[in-house]
């Protein structure tokens, strides 16, 4: 055991600088359906980008075209400036962790990790040493001889991560690697992936539909919608300055309220709120307001408490306004509104994002 630990002390981090990846106008169609529709994204050297989006938005497809598991119909993908479109998957030098458990069932954990090294014709002794070091990195050094069916889901994904990293790939690709795991393991492994990624400085693309996961793990988050990227930014940027209500809704919780834009201000229930995008044209809009940007007050909008739930460090309360509109508030746990209680709420005035009211609802308004 001790000797193994000592070996692990050697840095496993690749000495080469991180890799740059660039998607330019990538199009991928599946029998007429566009899974990627002019997809653009750059990964800077050594950064972890989370691809966040609802199911079916094309996240997996983006990852798979980068890995070479799917061909592209148009556009280019370059790695360190070199177009890889014609390169076979086996030559792209990517490490990939799949959503489903993907360990080879006929090989032990250690042999699984050795697989990539074996393909690269590394000698057995070195293979074994590096596999052991890689397993140690994910905290499984004493599981070398276990088979997949003897490992928990979380352990299997750890081995898969060790297997993906042992060859020191140029890019690490993770496709919802945590989605099959239970909540506690998910958070643990998520933090561990982040730690390892930072230590190795490996350029990483992390696909997920879970906003918490994306915000926690990534240097930058790219939010996808219908085969395209809607907004890219640091987690802080996305949360505090969502470009559209779709983002506001998807990244964090948001209230969606009917409002009106007039001379670069949004008017909601008689309150004027600053706009994140001041160039928004006048007209009826849907306004997104964060639950923490609504507060209880001595006077303001009259409302009735519908429900209030304790979330550990904070409390979330649902209230109904006089016109029936439902609002969520987020506040400290000391305030404990009771259902049925009459309260007043105000908007704190934080800048908001807006979306023009869709044609359908405009049409409805005309009647």
């Amino acid at each position, binding site marked *: 055991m001790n000797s193994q630990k000592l070996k692990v002390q050697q840095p496993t981090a690749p000495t080469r600088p991180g890799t740059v990846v660039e998607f330019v106008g990538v199009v991928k169609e599946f029998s007429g359906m566009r899974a990627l529709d002019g997809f653009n994204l750059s990964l800077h050297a050594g950064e972890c980008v989370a691809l966040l989006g609802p199911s079916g938005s094309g996240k997996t497809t983006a990852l798979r075209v980068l*890995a070479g598991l799917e061909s592209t119909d148009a556009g280019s993908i370059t790695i360190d400036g070199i177009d890889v479109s014609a390169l076979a998957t086996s030559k792209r030098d990517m490490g990939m962790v799949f959503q489903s458990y993907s360990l*080879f069932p006929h090989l032990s954990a250690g042999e699984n990790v050795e697989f990539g090294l074996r393909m690269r014709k590394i000698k057995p002794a070195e293979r074994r040493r590096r596999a052991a070091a890689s397993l140690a990195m994910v905290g499984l050094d004493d599981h070398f001889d276990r088979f997949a069916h003897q490992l928990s889901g979380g352990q299997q994904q750890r081995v898969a991560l060790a*297997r993906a990293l042992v060859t020191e790939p140029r890019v690490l*690709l993770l496709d919802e690697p945590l989605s099959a795991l239970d909540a506690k393991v998910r958070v643990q492994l998520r933090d561990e992936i982040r730690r390892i990624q930072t230590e190795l400085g490996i350029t990483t693309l992390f696909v997920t539909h879970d906003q918490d996961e994306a915000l926690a793990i990534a240097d930058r988050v790219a939010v996808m919608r219908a085969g395209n990227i809607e907004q890219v930014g640091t987690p802080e940027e996305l949360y505090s300055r969502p470009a559209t209500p779709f983002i506001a809704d998807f990244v964090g919780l948001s209230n969606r309220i009917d409002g009106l834009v007039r001379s670069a201000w949004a008017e909601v229930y008689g309150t004027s709120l600053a706009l994140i995008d001041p160039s928004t044209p006048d007209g009826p809009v849907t306004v997104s307001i964060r639950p923490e940007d609504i507060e209880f007050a001595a006077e303001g909008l009259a409302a009735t408490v519908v429900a209030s739930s304790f979330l550990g460090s904070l409390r979330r309360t649902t209230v109904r306004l006089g016109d029936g509109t439902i609002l969520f508030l987020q506040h400290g746990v000391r305030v404990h509104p009771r259902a049925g209680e009459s309260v007043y709420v105000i908007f704190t005035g934080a800048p908001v994002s807006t979306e023009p009211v869709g044609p359908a609802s405009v049409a409805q308004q005309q009647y």
Partner: protein
Amino acid sequence: MTGLTANGVAHAPSRTVRTIILGLIGVIFAVPIVAMIEFTLRAGLVGGYNVDRWVALFQSGFTGVYRPVLVALGNSVALAVGTVLIVLLLLVPTMLLVHIRFPRLRRVLEFTCILPITIPAIVLVVGLAPVYAIVARMLGSGVWTLAFAYGITVLPFAYRAIQSNLDGVDVKTLTEAARTLGAGWGRVLLWVLVPNLRRGILAGAFIVVAVVLGEFTIASLLNRVNLQTALVVVSKVDPYTAVILSLLALAFAFLLLLVIGRLGAPRTRTSRRRTNVKGQA
């Protein structure tokens, strides 16, 4: 056994139920075999039993009238090997290709492979006879050419055996994992797919061997000699000896399957693990 418990079969029958089922099946299989043995031991019409016929057969050293049976046995074994090769080299790669790259063709492949079971051998021969006239002109009329016909008749059995294994393995993900790790298609096949499909492939091979060793109709109607046609010839001369030979053929097939099973048996995981744990401590 380990496989069963490892997969955690939900409502596995109790020990007694299993024993009863096995016992019943054992009896059903044993009755005809015991009857055959009894028949070969009958001492003429007066009753009583002796082993004279067995002794006579072995003392004669399978010469004379029994010689063709040995030759025919050789033919049948060669045919079994040839048919297994056809299944391994043609059916397995085709199934993998369809499974991974052309999943839409799966129904077509399944239908094609199951089809032969719905066609009586005698009907098959009607179609095969003119085909074999051409085959004979091109490749000669050697017995081995029958392997082509058998390759078709065993398709349903081999297909089912391999497909059920294929359904239980996430072939697509394993293949993709191997490819991202640097394996080309050849290595994916040899290092990942074959090891994980070994059980299905072996089961398929078993059934193929069993079917080919027991085949009579096609060989007989196409005028080729195999084990079963030779036994029929002998039985017309000496029914007692024919039954003895049938019993021996049965024992031979049993041994053959046992050997194939041994060759392809998976590395015993438990013993492997034990040695490794010892090595680590």
